[in-house]
C-alpha cells in the first residue's frame, strides 16, 4: 500500500516515512502542498499523511481540493499540525480528515492509527 507523506520539514518526513516503511508500507514524499496535490492525483494512494502548515498550498487547501475530485474524494487523510487548538481540529475534521494529530507526535501512534483507518476503509469481502 502506498502512502503519501507531505511535510515541509525534512526531519518529519524521515521520521514518518521510516516508521511506515518499517511497518510494511510503500512511501512517497512531498515537501509542499503543490507537490502533495500533484502526487495525490497521479499516484494510486492508500492514504495521505499531511502537515497543515506547508509552503505554496497549506494542508487544509490540499484536503479541500482532494475532496472535490471523484478519484480522491474518499482518500483517507491524517493531518499533522503544530497547533492543537479546537478550531484547527474542528476545521480539519469538518473537511473530512480522518484523524488529526498534534505535534509533537509519536510515529508509532500515527502508524497504528493509519492501520486502523485503512482497515475500516478496506472493502469488505
Amino acid at each position: 500500500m502506498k502512502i503519501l507523506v507531505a511535510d515541509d520539514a525534512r526531519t518529519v518526513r524521515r521520521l514518518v516515512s521510516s516508521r511506515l516503511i518499517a511497518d510494511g508500507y510503500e512511501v512517497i514524499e512531498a515537501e509542499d502542498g503543490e507537490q502533495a496535490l500533484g502526487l495525490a492525483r497521479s499516484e494510486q494512494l492508500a492514504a495521505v499523511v499531511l502537515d497543515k502548515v506547508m509552503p505554496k498550498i497549506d494542508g487544509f487547501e490540499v484536503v479541500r481540493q482532494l475532496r472535490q475530485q471523484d478519484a480522491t474524494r474518499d482518500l483517507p487523510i491524517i493531518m499533522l499540525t503544530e497547533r492543537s487548538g479546537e478550531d484547527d481540529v474542528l476545521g480539519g475534521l469538518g473537511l473530512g480528515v480522518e484523524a488529526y494529530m498534534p505535534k509533537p507526535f509519536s510515529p508509532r501512534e500515527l502508524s497504528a492509527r493509519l492501520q486502523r483507518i485503512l482497515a475500516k476503509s478496506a472493502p469488505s469481502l
Partner: protein
Amino acid sequence: MNSGLLWATTGLAALALLLVTMIVVMRAFADRRLRRDAKLRPEIELRIVEHLALDDPEPSDRPQSRAARRLLLLVALEALGELRGAERQRVTELLEQAGTVADLKSRLLSWRWKRRLEAAEALVEVRSQGTVDALVAGLFDRKQSVRLTCAGALAELGDQGPIPAVIAVADEEAAEQPGAAAAILLALGRRARLSLSTALEPGHSPELRRLAAAVIGELHISDHAELLLESLDSPDDELVARGARGLGAIGDVDAVQRLLGLLDEPDRAWFVRLASIGALGQIGDSSAVKALERELYSDNWYLAEKSAAALRQLGAAGQTALNGALGSQNLEARGHAAVAMQ
C-alpha cells in the same frame, strides 16, 4: 600627486583587498561546510531513524568527525522537537550513547558564555537525567541567560531535588525576565505540578507569585485551588486578579462566595472586579446572578460588558437577568445585554 595622498590611497586599497579576500575565504569555508553537511546529513538521519525503527537497536557509537557530531546533535534536536513519548526518549538515549550529552555537559563549563548558553539550550530539548548535576551547577553561572536556560532545562526534567533552586532562579529573575520565569513555571507545572505551590508562597517576590497564580490557572491545576483562594486575601491586586482568573479557569465552585466578596471590597482595583466577574461566569453558579446583575448597571463599561457575558453563562437565571436589562431604561445595560444574547 603628493606622497601622503599616495600612501593613503595605497593603504585603503590594501585594506579593501584584505576585506574582500577575507569575505571570499570565509564564504569558501561556509560553502564547503554546507556541501559536507549535505553529504553527511542522510547518513545521520538514517542513523536516527534506524535507532527508532528497530525494537532492540545496537548501542550507538560516537561519530568519528567533529562535523558528524555537530550534525548528529542538530538533526537530533530537530527530531526531539517533533516527537513525544517513547520515541523521543529513544533519541535522547541515542545521544547519550553517542557521547553527545557528555559533550554538552563539558560545554557548560566553557569559558565562552555563548557556548555555555548553546549547550544549555540543547539540554532543554534533550532532557537527559544524567545532566542534572551539570545543570544545577549552571544555575550559578555568571550569565543571566545561562542561569535561566539551565533552570528551564531542569524544570523540563522535573527532577524533584533541584526544584527549590530552580524556583529561586525564577524568583530572582521574574521582575527582569518575566517571560523566561513564566516558561520555567509552565515547565514545572507540566512536569512537577505540585511544586508550583512553593512558587506561590508569601516568601517569594510579587512577580513570581503572580506568574505562579497565572500558570496554575492556565494549566487548570485544581490541586492548588485552595492556594489560589488564599491568594484572594493578598493586598497585591495583581495577584488577586490572577488568582480569581485561575479559580474561574479551574471552575472551583467553593470559590464563589469569596469571589462575590471581592465585588464588595471598595479598595480593590477595577481589574480585580473584572477578573472576579469573569471567574463567576466561568464557574457558572447561579448564586452569582444577583451580584452580576448589579454590575451590569455599572458605570465602568468593561465591568458591565463582562457581567453581561458572565450572566449569559449562568443558564436560565442569567437569561432572566439579561431579559430584564433589555427592558430597562439604562441604554448601556440594554446594549450589553443585547450583545451578550447574540
